[in-house]
């Protein structure tokens, strides 16, 4: 579906949800559940925690929707929802520090079946987690927001309170660091 058509359809649904239409909100859930879940999974490395936090994110989104104002390009619903997810993670980590670990990945339960079925090479995913884990928190956040959440630099910059140029450089350095860590292993994959 072309982006413009998708966005206008999404805007209608968001407006209905703002008006209190719970079914419309359910529709937004269907549209974003996987993406938010994936984002949270990558930030917590636990499928169970990701699932719990996802509930929090959508509850918070529901309550905050009346304050959501769609502006031209600067704020879209996706970026707004990811901001809620990001803040939910911060809140979560205030109470419980969680680091990415391969062990936890191996223990993943609820979505494990899906994970095994859809990701051909689980080792590759583990390697990705392992390398991400060696990065500093900011670099990790930039990569996950860019590549997992699919946010633009502007959106990531706004989310993290940095300049766009900084985000690009952080991304570049993070990619270089991952290359150094994996050596030639990445080439040709």
């Amino acid at each position, binding site marked *: *579906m*072309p982006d413009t058509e998708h966005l206008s*359809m999404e805007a*209608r649904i968001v407006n*209905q949800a*703002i*008006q*209190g*239409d*719970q*079914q*419309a*909100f*359910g*529709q937004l*859930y*269907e549209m974003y*559940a*996987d993406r938010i*879940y*994936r984002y949270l*999974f*990558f930030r917590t490395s636990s499928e169970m925690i990701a*699932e719990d936090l*996802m*509930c929090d994110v*959508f509850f918070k989104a*529901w*309550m905050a929707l*009346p304050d959501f104002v769609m502006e031209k390009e600067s704020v879209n619903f996706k970026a707004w929802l990811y901001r809620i997810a990001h803040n939910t993670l911060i809140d979560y980590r205030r109470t419980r520090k969680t680091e990415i670990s391969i062990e936890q990945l191996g223990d993943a339960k*609820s*979505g494990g*079946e*899906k*994970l095994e*079925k*859809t*990701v*051909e*090479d689980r080792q*590759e*995913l583990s390697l*990705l987690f392992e390398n991400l884990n060696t990065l500093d928190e900011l670099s990790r956040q930039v*990569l996950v927001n860019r*590549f*997992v959440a699919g946010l633009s*630099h502007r959106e990531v910059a706004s989310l993290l309170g940095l300049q766009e*140029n900084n985000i*690009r*450089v952080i*991304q*570049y350095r993070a*990619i*270089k660091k*991952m*290359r150094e860590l994996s050596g030639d292993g*990445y*080439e*040709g*994959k």
Partner: protein
Amino acid sequence: MKENEIARIIDHCLNEITSGSATEKDCLLRYPALEEDLRMAFSIQRQFKSIESIGLNEQSRVAVKKTILFNLPHRETPVTKRVDIRYRWQNTKWRFAMTWVIIVITVLSLLGGTGAVIASGDALPGEFLYPVKTWTEDIQLLLAPDNVDVELAGIFSSRRMEELIALLQSGEEIALDDLLGEYRNRTELMTQAFEKVRAQDPEEAIRLQIELESRLREQARIMEDLMAGDEDSLDLPLRTRVRTMLETNTQTRLRIAQVVAPVENPVDDPVEEPSTEVSDDPEDKNKNQNQYENQNRNRVEYASDEFVENGVLYFQFRFAESLANGVYAEVDGLKYACSVRGDLATCNLSGSKGNGTLKLFDQKTNELLYSFDYQHDYEYLWSGVKEGGEEKQQQGSSDSGAGSHDNGRTGGSK
């Protein structure tokens, strides 16, 4: 070159590749000095891309959705009159439904205990309690308003997928015919309810359409995965049944995606494909091909954008004349829904193979409109030969600029 500048170029290339406006090879040719950096960035981007399929499984997704929707806190937000009326109506229906649920549970308790209803939740076709399961579903469908019917029937059709997998795993394959009938029934009810909603409330229909398309695509993916296995994993009779279910799924998607009437009985009355008939006589073959090309040369203005969104491949074709009848696509005998806006058709090729022959048919007359061979690297963009014949190649590439190209496999794509 300054770090800032390298970072900007790499980022620009990554964005272009994501949006489909350039390939890895394009970027590598444009910035040969940054080949090493670019290749690494592409490699990491691909790695992240490969995890896009991670998500909640269907069961968890539905469970979480229920949890969220049932526990949504009250919000002090002014509600429009229209919505207010609808909710009042729904509440009335809900009260009515609950009355019936109580009656049904009471009757079942008298006959066999509530345990029967609960236990039937895991029943498979052919088992004693399975009729209780489908009957309970029927009651829910009977009592729910149309828009809820659509969602319920969608959920029930997904249950048939779970049952399909369970049956194949347990070896109880004889019950597949029952399952096929149930799947047809649920998808038909879903489509009928959806068409009612579309007639009554187009906005609501748009919202439901997204959900149904997503659900049906997921079901199609499951069936395609099953069929992708070798004959040991799924023998011919079973494969035929799964294929029939997939046909039902495709037809449902077509009906939901299109405003026009459904293709009549596609399983029993296969679409004629005059141009693709295999002929041993080279003259006949050329004649057919020429006839076909003459017929369609002026119809397709260009075969234009192809893009991947959320792992789903889309084609867009612009036709010289109106597509009032709508179109659908076919690849390797499987049909795919296309949406039509004016003279632009967009086909959703979810689950299609990376290469094959794509044919476009008129939705109403089943006339073959266009056909070409393609290859596609699902990770990124087109590669290899896109068009079927020289003339079509010219048509496709001259207008769209998207003819044959390599997507930079040398850069290490799968």
